[in-house]
C-alpha cells in the first residue's frame, strides 16, 4: 500500500464471471425453506471490488466457489481466498473486506472464518492470524481511513 502509484501486479490474469444464479420454482414457493449454501455465500463475496484494479475478486480468481464452505445448520462459514501473487501486500485488506462483507450480510449466528488458501502467500500465517482476531478486526474498522478503503471495496460498482 505504500507505493500505490506502482502496481504490484500490473497485468493480472482475468477470469470469466459466473452467471447469475437461476431462479427455481422452489425459490418462489413460500412453504419451502431455502438453506444458505456455498453459492449464496459466493454470491455475497464475488462482487467485492479489488482494492487495486477495477475488477471484482471473482474476475481475478481471488475467490472461487469451491473454496467456500458453509454449514447452515452448524452456523459456520469458511472462505479461502487466493492472492494473485505470493507477495501481495493487499492480502490483508482483501481478507478484511471479505470478512466485513460477510459480517454485514450474514445472520449473527454464523462463525465466520476467512483465510488464505494454504501455500499461496508468503506471509500466510500472519495474515490469517490477523483476520481471525476479533479485536484486531474491530480495531481496524475503527480506523476511518481503513474503513474508507473497505467501504470502497464493498460499494456496488457503477454507482
Amino acid at each position, binding site marked *: 500500500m505504500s507505493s500505490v502509484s506502482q502496481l504490484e501486479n500490473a497485468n493480472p490474469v482475468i477470469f470469466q464471471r459466473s452467471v447469475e444464479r437461476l431462479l427455481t420454482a422452489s*425459490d418462489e414457493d413460500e412453504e419451502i425453506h431455502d438453506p444458505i449454501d456455498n453459492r449464496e455465500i459466493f454470491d455475497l463475496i464475488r462482487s467485492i471490488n479489488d482494492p487495486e484494479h477495477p475488477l471484482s475478486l471473482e474476475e481475478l480468481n481471488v475467490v472461487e466457489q469451491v473454496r467456500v464452505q458453509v454449514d447452515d445448520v452448524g452456523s459456520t462459514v469458511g472462505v479461502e481466498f487466493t492472492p494473485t501473487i505470493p507477495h501481495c501486500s493487499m492480502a490483508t485488506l482483501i481478507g478484511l473486506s471479505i470478512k466485513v462483507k460477510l459480517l454485514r*450480510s450474514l445472520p449473527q*449466528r454464523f462463525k465466520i472464518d476467512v483465510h488464505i488458501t494454504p501455500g499461496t502467500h508468503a506471509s500466510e500465517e500472519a495474515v490469517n492470524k490477523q483476520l481471525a482476531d476479533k479485536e484486531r478486526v474491530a480495531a481496524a474498522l475503527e480506523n476511518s481511513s481503513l474503513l474508507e478503503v473497505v467501504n470502497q471495496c464493498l460499494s456496488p460498482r457503477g454507482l
Partner: protein
Amino acid sequence: RSAAAVNCLYFGIFSLCRPCLTNSQAHTRARGVQLLSEVLLECYEELTEREVEVLIAFYENRLKDHYVIIPAVLQGLKALVSDCTVLPPGSAVSMLRSLFQDVHVQVRPTRYYLVICLPFFFLTELKGLGADFVFGFVQSMDGERDPRNLLLAFQIAKNLIRRGYNQGKFTEELFEVTSCYFPIDFSPPPNDPHGITKEELIQTLRDVLTGTPKFAEYLLPLLIEKLDSDVQSSKLDSLQTLASCVSEYEHKDLAEFLEGLWTSLRREVFQTSSEKIESAALAALTALTSCLSRSVLNSDSEDSLSAFMDLVLKDCKHHLCEPDLKLVWPSAKLLQAACSASNRATTHVYSIFVFIHDNFNYLEFFPTMSYFFPLVVPEDVNMFSDFREALCTIAFSAISESNSNLQITAASVLTSLAQQKGLLSEADIQRAVDHLCRLLLIEDDDRVSLAVVECAGTLAELHPDAFITTLIPKLKDLLLFHSEPMDQDREASEQNTHHALRQRCLSALAAVSTQPCVVKESTPVILQVLSSAHKGNQRVYVQNKGCSLWIMRFCFCFVQTRVLFLLSQSSCGFLLCVFNADRLAAQTADRLVSLFLDGDVSFLPDNSLPANICLLKVCVCVRVQSQLVCLLMACVCSLPKTLEVPQCDRLLLELEGLSCTSLHPLSYTSAAKCFAGLVNKRAQGERVLVSTVELYELDCSSSSVRTQTFTLLIWVSKALLLRYHPLTSAFTDKIFSLLDDAELGPMAADSFSLLMSDSADVLSRGCHADVRIMYRQRFFSENSHKLVQGFNAAPQGRPDKPNYLKALSNIVSKLPQQVQVTELPALLSLLLEALTCPDGGVQLSTLSCLQPVLINPPQTLIQQLEALVSRLLVLISSAQMNVRVASLRCIHTLSYFPVHEVLPFRARVLRALAKPLDDKKRLVRSEAVIARGEWFLLGSPGGR
C-alpha cells in the same frame, strides 16, 4: 208370445205357403221358399230341434229342385245354420253332402259361405267326413274362375289344412286344384264392387300352398319351375312363397331340392334384374338356411346344412377366384344372407376367410373384402375366434401396403373387427393404433386420412387406453414441438404438406375425443395448440373455415363429458382468437345465436344434443349447459363493429335474465361479460338495457342474487367506462356506494382491479371493442377523491374501511407510472394508511405503487418519513414472501433519500434488517443483503 202362439203362427205360415210350394211353376215355388226363408231368418231361435230337422230335410230336398229356387233354399239353410245350438247331430254332414252333390256353379258364393261356416261349428262331426269332404271340395272348386269364389275357396282350403282334415289320398288333388292358380295373375276390373285385390288372392293362396309340409314335394319343383320364368312378378311371388314355406318345413322335406333351389337363387342374385327380386332371393336364402339349421338331425341322416353350405361356399369361392372380381359383391351378399340365418351357418361362412388367407393372393381381392363386413355380429365371439388370426393377418398386411384402396379397406375392416367385443387382443389393438398413427403421419391422401380418422374415432370409443398411451402423445409431440418450417427457402408445397399434416392430426384428435378419459388427455393438447395459434404463428390453419365449427363440436363434447372446467375463462381467450380469425365470423355468429336462442342444433353434424335444447335457461342439473354461454360470448363479442349481431335485443334480454338468475358462477359471469361485450358495441343512443329493477336487487340486502347482479353491474360499468358512455358514472357510483356494504364491500373493492385492467376474452381491442385511450387516467382523476372522502368519512375501526384502501391500490397499481408519480402525492396519506391494512394484496399493491415514487421523493413524503419507515419495517416480517421482498426494496430505495433526512434512522434500520438476513427464503435474504449493505455505506467514510 207363448210357444203355443208361435207354433200357431208357423202353422199358419206353412198353410199359406203350401199352395205356393206345391205349385208347378218354378218361380212361384221360389217365392214360397223365399217367404219361408225370410221368416226363418227372423225367428229361427224359437225353433225346436225336431222342427229344425224337418226344415233341413225339406231344404235338402229342395236343393234338387229347379235352379231358380236354389238361392232361396240356400238363404234358408244359412238362416238355420246361423244358430248352431239346435242343429240335430248328423245334419251338418248330410247338408254338405247335398251341397256338393246337387248345387251348381251359379250360386257358389252362398254355398261356399256355408262350407266355411259349418266346419267352424261341427269340426268333430265333419272330421268323420274326412277324405270325402276334401274330395267333394276339390271337385266343387275345379275349374272355378270367379275371384270371389276363389278367395272363399282358398280360405276353405286353408282351413282344411290348418285344422288337420284327413286328406287321405287326395293331398295331391288338393294341391293340384289350388296350385294351378299359382302364380296369381289377376287385375280387378275398374270399379269392382267386390273389392278383391291381387294381393289378397296371392296371400290366401300362399297360405294354402305353404300350409303343410305335405305339399313340399309338389310345391318345391313348382317354385323352381316358376323361378325360371321370365315374368318378374312370378319370380317375386315364387321367392316370397319359398321364403314363407320353409318356415314349416324340415330338412328332409327340402333335401332333394336343395341343389335346384340354390341354382335358382344364385342365378337371381348373380344375374339380378331388379333389386326387389334380389332382396327377395336373399331373404329366401336366409329362410332356407335357417330352416336347415333348425332341423333336428337323425343319427343316420346327413347334415343337410353343411351340405348346402358347401354348395354355397363352393360357388362363392369360385367367384372369388375369378380374375375380374365381378361377382365378388353378389357372392358377399349371398354369404351375408346365409350368415344371418344362424350361428351354425355363420361358422360355415367364416371359413371363407381362412380360404382367402390360405389359398389366395388376397391383397388383390382385398378391396372387395369390406363387403364381408359387417357380417352379422355373432352372439358368441368364440365362434369368430377360429378365424381371428386369418382376419387380422389379412387386415394388417393390407394396411401396411402403400395402395390407398387397400389401406382404406383395411381401416374399415379393423373398425368392424374392433367392434366385436373381445375379439381383438390388447396386442392387436395396439398394433392397429400404431398403424393408424403411422398412416396419419405419412399418408396425405385425403380419402385415406378420412378413413383413418374415422377408424380411430370408432376404436377410441371402445379401446380408449391404447389411444391415451400411444396416439395422443404422438399427436401432442407433433402438434406442439414440431413447429412449422419458417424457412423462406422451403418450397410452398412443403409448407402446405405440413399444414395438411397438422390438420389431420387435429381432426384425429377431435375424432378420438369421445370418451371422458380420452378427452381429459386430449384437451390440454388442444388448448396448447390453440394458445400457440393465439400467438399468431399458426394463423394459417386456424383460418381454415371449418375450424370454428370443429372447436364448437369439441366444446360440446366437453360439456357432454363434464370436463368443461378445463374450458374456463382462460381458454375462452383462445377460442376467441379462433372465432376472430374465422372468415365466416358472421355466419358462425348467426348459427350460434340461433342455437342459443332457439335451440337450433341443425348445423352441428352428428351431435348428440337433444332437439330444442335451451342453452340460456337456468337449470339446476349437474351438467350446467348454460356455461356454454362463454362460447357464445367468444363469438358474438369478437365480431367486428361492421357486422351486426343478429337478434341483438332479444339476446341482451336473455343474457340479462341468465346473468341475474343463474346460480352457476361461470354461467352468470359469462352471461354478464357477453352482455357487457354487446353493450359496449351498441350504437350511441341505443338503449342500454339493465333494467333499474335489477339494480334495486343490490339495495335489497336479503336478495339471493346480489352477487349475480353485482357481477353484471361491474361488467356493464366496464363496458360503458371503456367507451366514455355518459351513463358510466351512474354505474360506477353504484360500485363506490357498495364499498361499505357488509356483504359486497370486499367484492366491490376487488372489482376496481377488473375495471382498470384489460380482459383478454372480452372488451378488448382484440375483439373490436370500443376502447378509448387513457380511460384509466380519466377514471382515476374523476373518482380518486371519492375514495379519499369515503375513507375519511368511514368511522375508524369499521370493518369496511380497508375496502377503500384496497380499491385505491387496485386503481393506482394499474395506472401508468408517470401518472402515478404525478398523482400520488395527493393520495399519500391514504397510501400510508394502506400499508397498515392487514390485507396482503393491498400491502403488495401499495408497496409496488410506492417504490417508483420513492426514487424521487416528494417533499410531503419526506415529512412523513417516520411513519413510512416504521410501517415498512413492520412489513419486512410479513407472512407473505412477496410483501417482505417488496418492503425490503422500498427500504433499499429509502437509503438514497437525502442523507441528512435518513441518517437518523440508520441504526434502527440496520438492526431491523439483521433479522431478514436469516429469512427462510433466499429471495428475501438477497434483498435484505442489498438493502443492509447500502444502509451500512450511508454516512460511513468511503460510503455515501
